């Protein structure tokens, strides 16, 4: 594979989506585990632990949409109508949870409503993202330069499974983040939740790994023919290693291990999907090169991305640094 502009952009886009999963994953996950926390105070602390960073995290999703539009307009034009309902529902769900961050504190009498809005929005948005992911693996019907399937093609047992799987994965990220950021009873509760969701996530990793190769012979060949097998072998091996790290971290109560190890685990799953997907951007219908915008567009953007991505990572990192460390367990947040 040569390193031309479409390939570079596919890589950058994949990186952006992965950063999104790692970052918004934990704040969506906190929304999912929110009702499982013990007290009102704990819920307040949990929400405060993401309040300063959530909209920065969500910006990576805007980059995902905008980046696909800009770099691969044809793929964007096919995928969005194909996944019309999941995307619209996800966006609406994100509205529900996004407004809850401020409304919850503005209206103490209706706090329970906004708490439900927060959890429900987080859960539905995550589930829809899982469905989108599943649809990408399962394939999209294309004719000419447009989507040619029906409006419910995305809804299959496989995509429902990936939807539930992602909910578990994000919940694990959320619990891992709480372990990292809190102390006392909330931290212990987060450990219990992390244990539960780690188990569920690992089950789903196994199910996805077994199910996916049978969706298409092409994916099967990627994983189970020589010499491909040797190239992709590190993925399952590293997955086992990440699993061991999480298990040990949970057992030994290593606060700083769970969240990063979960990111590694999800990252490996992400790479696994990528192995099955390349060189397609709309699976088995449109390749990265077919969908790519002209080089003039890609080059113009690349200049901006190369200057700005390091800056973005710099000041985002700085913002996380400002709010580093454990929160006091009184819901008051940043003192």
């Amino acid at each position: 594979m040569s390193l031309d502009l479409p390939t570079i952009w596919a890589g950058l886009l994949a990186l952006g989506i992965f950063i999104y999963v790692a970052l918004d994953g934990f704040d969506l996950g906190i929304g999912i585990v929110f009702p499982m926390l013990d007290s009102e105070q704990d819920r307040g602390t949990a929400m405060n632990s993401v309040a300063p960073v959530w909209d920065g995290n969500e910006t990576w999703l805007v980059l995902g949409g905008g980046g696909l539009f800009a770099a691969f307009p044809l793929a964007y034009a096919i995928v969005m109508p194909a996944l019309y309902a999941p995307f619209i529902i996800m966006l609406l769900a994100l509205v529900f949870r996004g407004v809850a961050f401020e409304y919850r504190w503005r209206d103490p009498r209706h706090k329970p409503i906004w708490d439900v809005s927060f959890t429900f929005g987080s859960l539905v948005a995550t589930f829809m993202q899982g469905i989108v992911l599943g649809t990408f693996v399962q394939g999209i019907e294309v004719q000419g330069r447009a989507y040619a399937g029906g409006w419910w093609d995305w809804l299959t047992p496989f995509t429902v499974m990936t939807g539930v799987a992602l909910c578990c994965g994000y919940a694990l990220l959320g619990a891992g983040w709480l372990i990292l950021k809190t102390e006392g009873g909330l931290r212990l509760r987060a450990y219990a939740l992390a244990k539960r969701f780690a188990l569920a996530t690992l089950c789903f990793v196994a199910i996805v790994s077994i199910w996916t190769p049978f969706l298409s012979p092409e994916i099967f060949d990627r994983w189970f023919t020589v010499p491909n097998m040797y190239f992709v072998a590190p993925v399952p091996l590293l997955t086992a290693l990440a699993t061991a790290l999480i298990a040990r971290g949970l057992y030994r109560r290593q606060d700083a291990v769970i969240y990063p190890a979960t990111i590694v685990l999800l990252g490996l799953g992400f790479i696994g999907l990528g192995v099955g997907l390349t060189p397609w951007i709309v699976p088995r219908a449109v390749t990265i090169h077919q969908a790519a915008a002209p080089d003039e567009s890609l080059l113009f953007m690349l200049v901006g991305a190369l200057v700005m991505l390091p800056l973005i990572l710099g000041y985002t990192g700085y913002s996380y640094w400002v709010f580093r460390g454990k929160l006091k367990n009184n819901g008051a947040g940043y003192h």
Partner: protein
Amino acid sequence: MVSFFDAEMLARFQFAFTVSFHIIFPSFSIGLASYLFVLEALWLKTNQPVYLRLYKYWLKIFAVAFGMGVVSGLVMSYQFGTNWSVFSDKAGPVIGPLLAYEVLSAFFLEAGFLGIMLFGMSRVGKGLHFTATAMVAFGTLLSATWILSVNSWMQTPAGYGVNELGQFVPEDWLAVIFNPSFPYRFVHMTLGAYLTTAFVVGGVGAYHLLRDRTDADARKMFSMAMWMATFVAPIQIMAGDAHGLNTLAHQPVKVAAMEGHWHRQKGAAFLIAAWPDQERAENLFEIGIPKASALVLTHSLDGETPGLKDVPAADRPPVVVVFWAFRVMILIGTLMAAVGLVSLWLRWRGRLYDAPLLHRFAVLMGPSGFVAVLCGWVVTEVGRQPYTVYGLLRTSDSLAPVDAPAVAASLIAFIVVYFLLFGAGTVYIFRMFRARPDGGDIETGVPQRAAGTTPVAALELSSRTATQQIEEGA
């Protein structure tokens, strides 16, 4: 005759609905971010507590408005694809990179520093906090720059070619970005956002002055807002005029719709009121000022102005909507300038804070900026129909292959959810308006929140001690 309920009309209505809701928040947060920047700068410079109180007061409101802007804006970045996929495929290579630049240069900047701006006052030094405010304010302006460049390119395309797949492809990026209508649209919209915010701030200040004339915070914000009205409203009228002349040069049919002129004519009248009939291609009635339109548009009493009949009926925008939206915008602009003049006169007479009539009118004018901004966008967006890329790509050829029932369902969902959630947000913002910046004398039923339970309240810590706050929270 197009049915109102076909997929195209539904998709157009959905886009109009979601983008109209969305634009309300940026028009407020662009102005408010700059206002917060000014307040913090004045506080750092003069050390007067009134500026810090106002900063904290408007920051809480900014947080709510900004949150609504983020989530409603996220919807927009996907709607191009879900509902206008053919447009996305064709125009993506040109406008996609501009949107990508908006995300990379502006959205991340705003979101990255917003956390520090909202919650970081006690975590970083004053200088760094001010830098965060500045970055957020700069980010909102940068975002406006890119998105207005995109919109302007769709109105007055330049610097492009067309490839063998029928896609627009970039040939000259500078010509794409600085397309003919962009500078005018940018100035007009930014000033519009500033005026919108000024009248909200002025309205809130006036409301508190009506209750307590001595309220120092209310005086300060009212005074600042009235300075904006005095100077910016007249500038905006001039900017609008220049923008109109630019439209005349590039989109004459839009100007004809704004004017309600069906025939190309010399010495045209400016119609104060009329009812344009699209079918019959004439006005059912009209009241006008002779020669005024010619004078404004051509700077000559006998200048020639375009008519809708210059183009076939299929290429004309819906005239009634454009015509009346334009008049509402002009009326509000004129009233804003009038408020500015009256306030200047009262200020000169030393009666700015002792003028209940002006204060009442200012309260009434509080939301006027939003109406004007929406009307302005209706004029420019409906006025460029039936095209998405002006003169090159028709709206009917831009549509995604999504069936009418699917679009109808999502449209209903957007309407219900937006009214419910953003309605609640508006209620909360009004509650915050009713509270006094100094926190005293709240008889509005809004309890003084326990400071320890809210993230934004963490800000209040810089003027209190931790023990005090824990006591209040307990």
